[in-house]
């Protein structure tokens, strides 16, 4: 009987009331997650940013084992274009098992930090380190220059950067990384069901907005409300792109920890490939204030960069160590979070949410709506 009454109410109310569940305040907050896609300018620190030849060369190199010292594998081994530029392994495996999960490489253009610990302040630096990283491509500058010189890409490389033989090996390394970066800048996730909802709200088209499932709407309400998710996952990318402790254990073994942001900053501040360094092509050094003024603190220890949630349904498993197998597991993690385990200053924002099964399902529906419908 109750069901019948409810149904009748919906029919009667349909003409005057839409099924948008959000309050005006919630609508305002929802608008801040867009519009999508965001318009991006070329990277001033990379002179081949947006250059079509560089993009094509970068794409080819990304997928070619020429970038690894022993031609063992390409960047795509871990960042598989068929799997949203990651793999389903918890932790990346190249030569050895790496400590961390492989991030998807979409929506990276224009960020302030790269990597789980933010060890790079530009996309070209983040593309450069894996080339010479021993656990990844394991090239030296010299072996890279030799490999490019002897490869089928030499003509394309010289068409962009000139005669390779008169280039210092370090310049070849930076140039190669800048083509990879030019390519990676073009990778973005498309519009989603959430974006249609958000834009409908902006246009005050409640009829169109009502196409967005109510479960996802309730999940969104939790996300910006009681769940506190929006404190860290905000803006069009659903990330503040800063570093936090989300309660994921950071012990690698009984004696070793993943120091996260702490180590990322040590690395950043001791290497030459920053926006304040000589390899930036930007005479005005626009982004350099970041590395110049970033503060270090003991609470950086074991914090990690807030991941973007766009396309998140396509990139399981989750967290810096890939320890949570699906979105349901992530939400249960936040729901049952052990605040005692939050280290350093702790994240006073996180608290045990004790979500109901319904709420867990709603949050999952919301997160799934941030990915393209297959």
């Amino acid at each position, binding site marked *: 009987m109750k069901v019948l009454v409810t149904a009748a109410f919906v029919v009667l109310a349909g003409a005057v009331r839409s099924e948008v569940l959000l309050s005006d305040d919630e609508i*305002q*907050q929802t*608008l*801040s997650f867009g*519009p999508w896609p965001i318009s991006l300018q070329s990277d001033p620190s990379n002179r081949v940013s947006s250059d079509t030849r560089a993009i094509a060369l970068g794409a080819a190199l990304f997928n070619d084992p020429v970038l690894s010292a022993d031609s063992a594998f390409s960047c795509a081994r871990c960042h598989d274009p068929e799997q949203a530029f990651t793999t389903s392994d918890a932790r990346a495996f190249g030569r050895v098992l790496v400590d961390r999960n492989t991030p998807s490489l979409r929506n990276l253009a224009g960020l302030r930090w790269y990597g789980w610990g933010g060890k790079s302040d530009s996309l070209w630096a983040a593309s450069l380190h894996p080339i010479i990283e021993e656990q990844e491509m394991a090239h030296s500058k010299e072996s890279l220059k030799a490999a490019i010189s002897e490869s089928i890409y030499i003509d394309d490389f010289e068409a962009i950067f000139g005669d390779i033989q008169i280039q210092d090996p370090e310049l070849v390394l930076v140039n190669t990384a800048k083509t990879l970066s030019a390519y990676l800048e073009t990778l973005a996730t498309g519009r989603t069901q959430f974006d249609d909802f958000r834009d409908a709200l*902006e246009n005050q088209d409640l009829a169109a907005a009502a196409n967005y499932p109510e479960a996802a709407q309730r999940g969104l309400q939790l996300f910006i409300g009681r769940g506190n998710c*929006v*404190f*860290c996952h*905000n*803006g069009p990318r659903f990330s*503040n*792109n*800063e*570093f936090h402790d989300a309660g994921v254990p950071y012990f690698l073994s009984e004696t070793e920890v993943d120091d996260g942001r702490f180590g990322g900053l040590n690395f950043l501040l001791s290497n030459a490939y920053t926006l304040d360094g000589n390899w930036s092509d930007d005479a005005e050094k626009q982004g350099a*204030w*970041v590395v110049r*003024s*970033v*503060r270090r*603190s003991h609470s950086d220890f074991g914090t990690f960069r807030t991941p973007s949630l766009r396309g998140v349904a396509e990139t399981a498993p989750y967290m810096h160590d890939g320890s949570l197998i699906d979105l349901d597991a992530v939400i249960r993690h936040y729901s049952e979070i052990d605040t005692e385990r939050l280290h350093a*200053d702790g*994240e*006073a*924002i996180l608290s045990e949410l004790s979500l109901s099964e319904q709420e867990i399902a709603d949050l999952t529906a919301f997160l799934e709506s941030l990915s393209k419908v297959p």
Partner: protein
Amino acid sequence: MIRWVVWFLVSSGAAVACETAGQRMSSEIQNAPKVHVALDEIRLSQPFSILLTVCDDVAVSEVRVDAIMPAHQHGLNYAPKITALGDRVFRADNMLFHMPGLWELRVDTNFGRRSISYTSDVVLK
């Protein structure tokens, strides 16, 4: 595009001078020289600048700027850069609020050997 809106929680003590230099900051010290702060629209996680004006005729030897979120002790991840513009006006650049909510802006000003702290609450929605 919708921006994060910002406004000051009205603090006690109406501004008497310097109205054009923004909002008066509060201090627990009685008869402290007046310090005003002016800021443009603040966008979440984007750098912004503020302008500080000391409205009384006193010599200022140093100005330091910081901010925290009292609710969960998050501070600034980047050190503000202070530039003296002359006439007791200072600009702080590279300010960045990386979370929405209430931020307490804190300005420590040295007048000779006397150091006075000022605060203003800023809500980033």
